[in-house]
């Protein structure tokens, strides 16, 4: 085969290869959100209440323990599951039940969930139960929010701040 034709073919193959490299390095574009969509992200860690209340040990029970183990209160380590419901304009967006982590289920729960929503004015309502001994809601929050396109609305939770915090 003529040398020039050979080189021409080589250039063709190199070009083809580079076109594939270039194209798939940025194309096709990935549409993470549709137009006029924002995201609500629930993200927090929380140590839920103990599953059982602490119990005061009787004198007899205390005497059966070694002297260095005589704590007057017996507290089981296991914590309550967390139940959470999030509503947007009175429509349920998510309902989550999270179990406490750890082998003894004595550590907090970690919540992370992102939900795509239509941008605009919304009424946001959220409640949680973090204590199995209590029936119903232990924390709740209601707020009007204006979610802009591509905005990430963060719902955090902080006991010190009184519960849910919208950022």
């Amino acid at each position, binding site marked *: *085969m003529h040398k020039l034709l*050979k080189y021409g*073919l*080589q250039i*063709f*193959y*190199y*070009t083809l*290869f*580079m076109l*594939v*490299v*270039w194209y*798939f*390095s*940025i*194309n096709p*574009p*990935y*549409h*993470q*959100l*549709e*137009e006029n*969509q*924002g*995201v609500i*992200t629930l*993200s*927090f*860690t929380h140590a839920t209440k103990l599953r059982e209340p602490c119990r005061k040990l009787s004198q007899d029970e205390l005497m059966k323990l070694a002297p260095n183990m005589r704590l007057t209160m017996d507290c089981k380590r296991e914590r309550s599951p967390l139940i959470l419901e999030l509503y947007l304009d009175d429509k349920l967006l998510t309902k989550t039940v999270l179990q406490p*982590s750890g082998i003894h289920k004595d*550590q907090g729960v*970690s*919540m*992370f969930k992102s939900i795509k929503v239509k941008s605009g004015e919304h009424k946001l309502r959220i409640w949680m139960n973090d204590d199995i001994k209590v029936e119903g809601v232990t924390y709740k929050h209601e707020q009007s929010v204006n979610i802009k*396109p*591509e*905005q*990430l609305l*963060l719902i*955090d939770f902080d006991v010190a701040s009184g519960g849910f915090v919208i*950022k």
Partner: protein
Amino acid sequence: MNPIKYAYLAVESWFNVAFGSEWNPLYNMGRLAFFFFWIVLISGLYLFIFFDTSLSGAYASVEAITYEQKYFGGVMRSLHRYASDAAVITIILHMFREYALGRYNGVRWFSWISGVPTLWLVITLGITGYWLVWDELGLYVAMLSSQLMDALPFIPGSMSRNFVGSQVSDRFFSLMAFLHFMGQPLFLVFALWIHVKRLSFVKAYAPKGLAIGSFIALLALSLAAPAVSHKAADASQVAAVLNIDWFYLNVYPLMDYFTAGQTWIMTLGVTFFLMIMPWLPPKKTGPAAEVHLDHCNGCEQCAEDCPFDAISVQARTDGAKFEHEVKVNPDLCASCGICVGSCPSSNPFRQKNEILVTGIDMPNKPINDIRDEVDNAIAKLMGNDKIIIMGCENSLDFNSLEAQNLHVVSLFCIGMMPSTLVEYALAHGADGVFITGCRTGDCFFRYGNEWVDERFDGNRQPILRKRADRSRIKVFRAAATDSKQLHKELDEFQNHIKSLNEKGAADEQEPANA
């Protein structure tokens, strides 16, 4: 024949037209991947000099490299990205080639199975690379990677929480930088070392011409379409559209449809499937080569030639006067028979009226049987142009070549053929020897073709002696898709032999007439 193999061989032949066998990129995918790694490494070292590993400074430093260094920084960044992408393509094509040509099972299982996690390691290296730019895409990669990590049962707490609101952790970012610059590349080098551990004569450098061509092509792409960032990462925003690199980030969009746990199951499922492929079904391989110490002088040529590092040299154990003997590791032996061709004792002129025993032999096709086949064929062939064809059973089906004056000796690999067998055939009545095997640059057992060429050229023992009449020997290599050319070459060779015989007969008559 397997249609995938047939189609792949056809494509390779198109590339042979343009590149020749030496530079054919499809023959050199693994070597090209190594070459792209070198480009990634060198460009990465350059970028590292100017890169700010802090969360607040990373994006600005990448932008400065891209736009403030005139062409150089931007080109280096683009080379870094595009060479990484090219590496993924070449690795995938390398895997596909080994699969299509049936070079992934049997004793080759180790290279296959070690190659799969190597690919994943490359992918994760790319993922941390995109993370470090800390633009919208970097944030997306960080968020989704964290969600994947959170789905693992042994990861405590929430890693995803690091990337929302004002909680983005600078230390975590520095950890990623360390992983990308040091941790992952070190693991990758280690994985590559394991990947080629069971092979001899590993070629890790791309042929010069192919390397130059590939580099020029990458450079041209870097100048034509420089790599750029998205907008700076903002934890309070989610980018609607991302130009993701599908070579590296293709798993993440799956998480729009599946949970992180399901994505793990799918990814691990694909990995598991790829890893068990060598046993779907298990390849039936012949028995390993056997050493006959009473015919082995410990010359070590077979150990030198074995492409799979299956033969080791050890101190003599049989009390013979030689210093060394060889030992075959059956787990590594691919039953290619190349060692038989390497052994000087495979000379068929030896032990003429006895059973020929060589120093190292294939139990399912001993050299004595091959010599007998040649003897019987020469006795049976008709005409004055008797041709013995020595062929490799892995290249193509030779049955159609059999004729009154043609006999095919089918070998496991053309490297199994002792050079002296060619000389023997010619000396015992064959008018010509036609040698064929896998295409040049594409030996099924890696080095059979090369060793034959070197033996014929006198550069590798045992050599084809000068007394062998080269005008009656022809080497033409072909794959299954080349049978037309093979027939053409064989016809030409037959005509050539006929003309030689006629000329010889005329030369003999001339002095008689005189």
